[in-house]
């Protein structure tokens, strides 16, 4: 059934913790996130802020020591956390929500040819696959009708051409290590788009690449998803990359989302003290570098209230006690701060 509004994905008050040797790490602390149909949402934050955990929670592939404590992940109107596992496996993951990994070098199995890895994805996830197709024992002994396979393969070659793999028809017979990092990331984009998904989760897809390759890949990804109207959740720690590709940006700090704004607003009128300081720490000619000071807190015993308060020059008692609710700077610009910088908060 279609969603009532134009939000494709609606994460609400998501709490996830990890059991570790030293204690329980509260990795996501009531996170909210929305993605509209056809938009690229940037999820920006430094390492350990929880952006990868959030991405994996949406995909439903958190490690076994992770625990959902509260919240919902509504996708197309349905809560993925309440959906039966086999339905998520069969109809959502890899089919309507696909994935582009951070490290294209390590994300292909080095021992299998590109063709067999691509065929595996299409066998289970191509749009031609009937919804009620079974999976057989452990996934073995499941039929892949010849006609569908041929059609899927033709699509795959076409998609590899689209992502500009040189000699796309030969790519199937090659091993992953025969491709450069940039080409492997192009292949990953092709694999992510082949099932014709509604949402692609791209987890730092350009971090491992050189600048010129990064520019090529960002350009390609942006063009393809815009042409197809696919939504993207794009996590990155690099504000420059976020500026390049995103329509809206959500900033996370230590497991909490702190600010969400359209890309123009975000860079022109940052309002959360953390966002402001983050932008100031970018090297820019003619400006003195400003450090944030202090270090990112541990998540096993995080600061109460707003987790940024120990490093925040604006912090007051209320910040140390209770996490601020979501307020709006403007219609599209949301914020979770008691003391926003240079802006009047609308109720």
């Amino acid at each position, binding site marked *: 059934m279609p969603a009532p509004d134009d939000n494709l994905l609606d994460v609400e008050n998501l709490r996830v913790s990890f059991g570790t040797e030293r204690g329980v790490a509260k990795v996501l602390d009531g996170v909210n996130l929305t993605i509209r149909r056809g938009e690229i949402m940037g999820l920006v934050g430094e390492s350990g802020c929880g952006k990868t955990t959030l991405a994996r929670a949406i995909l439903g592939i958190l490690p076994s020591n992770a625990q959902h404590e509260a919240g919902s992940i509504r996708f197309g109107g349905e809560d993925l956390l309440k959906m039966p596992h086999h339905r998520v496996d069969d109809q959502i993951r890899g089919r309507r929500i696909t994935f582009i990994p951070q490290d294209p070098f390590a994300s292909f199995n080095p021992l299998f040819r590109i063709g067999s890895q691509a065929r595996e994805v299409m066998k289970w996830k191509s749009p031609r696959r009937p919804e009620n197709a079974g999976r057989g024992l452990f996934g073995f002994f499941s039929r892949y009708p010849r006609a569908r396979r041929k059609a899927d393969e033709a699509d795959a070659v076409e998609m590899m051409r689209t992502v500009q793999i040189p000699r796309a028809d030969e790519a199937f017979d090659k091993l992953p290590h025969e491709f450069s990092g940039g080409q492997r990331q192009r292949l990953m984009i092709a694999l992510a788009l082949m099932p014709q998904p509604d949402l692609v989760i791209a987890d730092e897809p350009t971090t491992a690449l050189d600048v010129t390759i990064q520019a090529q890949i960002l350009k390609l990804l942006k063009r393809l998803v815009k042409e197809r109207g696919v939504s993207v959740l794009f996590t990155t720690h690099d504000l420059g990359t976020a500026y390049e590709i995103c329509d809206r940006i959500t900033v996370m700090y230590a497991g909490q989302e702190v600010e969400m704004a359209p890309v123009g607003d975000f860079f022109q009128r940052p309002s959360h003290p953390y966002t402001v300081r983050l932008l100031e720490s970018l*090297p820019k000619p003619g400006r003195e570098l400003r450090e944030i000071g202090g270090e990112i807190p541990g998540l096993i015993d995080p600061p109460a209230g707003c987790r940024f308060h120990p490093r925040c020059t604006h912090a007051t008692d209320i910040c140390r006690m209770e996490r601020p609710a979501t307020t709006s700077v403007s219609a599209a610009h949301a914020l979770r701060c008691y003391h926003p910088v240079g802006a009047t908060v609308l109720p």
Partner: protein
Amino acid sequence: MREAPILKADSLSRYFPVRNAFGIKTGAVRALDGVSFEVQPGETLGIVGESGCGKSTLGKALAGIHALSGGAIAFEGEEISRLSVRERRAAAPRLQYCHQDPGNSLDPRWTIRRSLEEPLVVHTRLKAAERVTRIRDLLRQVGLPQTHLDLYPHELSGGQQRRVGLARILALHPRLVVLDEPTSGLDMSVQATVLKLFSELREAFALTYLFISHDLSVVRMMCDRVAVMYLGRIVEIAPTEDLFRAPQHPYTQSLLAAIPDIGGRRVTDTFALEGEPPDPARLPSGCRFRTRCPRAVAVCAETDPALRPLLPNHAAACLLAG
């Protein structure tokens, strides 16, 4: 009037043999291929380039970790690339190398005190008490409390380990420090802290830096001059402002065009460079960049361009530039 250079690299090269399945040499990867430059006392020279361009090999060759296949390195007027290991050691205190994360340069089984003492034990005749005084000074200068002396590296945070690693490098009061990708993999806020620390230490210890990085915005912030490398060669070298204002080599131009410019035009709309660097074992004839160069003409496939001065202090290796 220019002073004598503190470091003079003259056609440095390092080749790795490529062998086939039978172990027979079929070619060579030229990780460094005739790289020459000078570093003036007190300046910071940036070396930028993408992965595989040879910048890291260059750093390790200067530090004596890798041997060279050819070329000469003169440090403070003294030839050091052909010295025996033992002789080379004499130069080590004045020419230091800093790994990507200097925190990792600490032996995990040694206390901070012992790690900091080691360079002094090896290179100086200081007495135990004098060594302790020197170590305490160093810790203060990198902004760490004295109480950390008897801890082990894993008991410190990553940032603190980094500071200890720097203190160890500075213990012998070097004149030149090779910084190898010092900000790679760091978060933005940490990067700002680290860059600031480097600037402060440069003032405090009157250091000369060779700053190797893939990040052009960081290089722009930190360096007086910049050398751009592509496939084992320097393709352009110029004062930072000149290079960023008027890059001469098409590769430098593409590199600059690939950096996101927040608030400006989007690279995803403007970026034009196609293709990827060729296999370093099978370089194209003539100019190495011609296979990707938007301006390449027939002559580029025939002549291998040398680095030639175009403007004062500004040289580029392109037949069409200038």
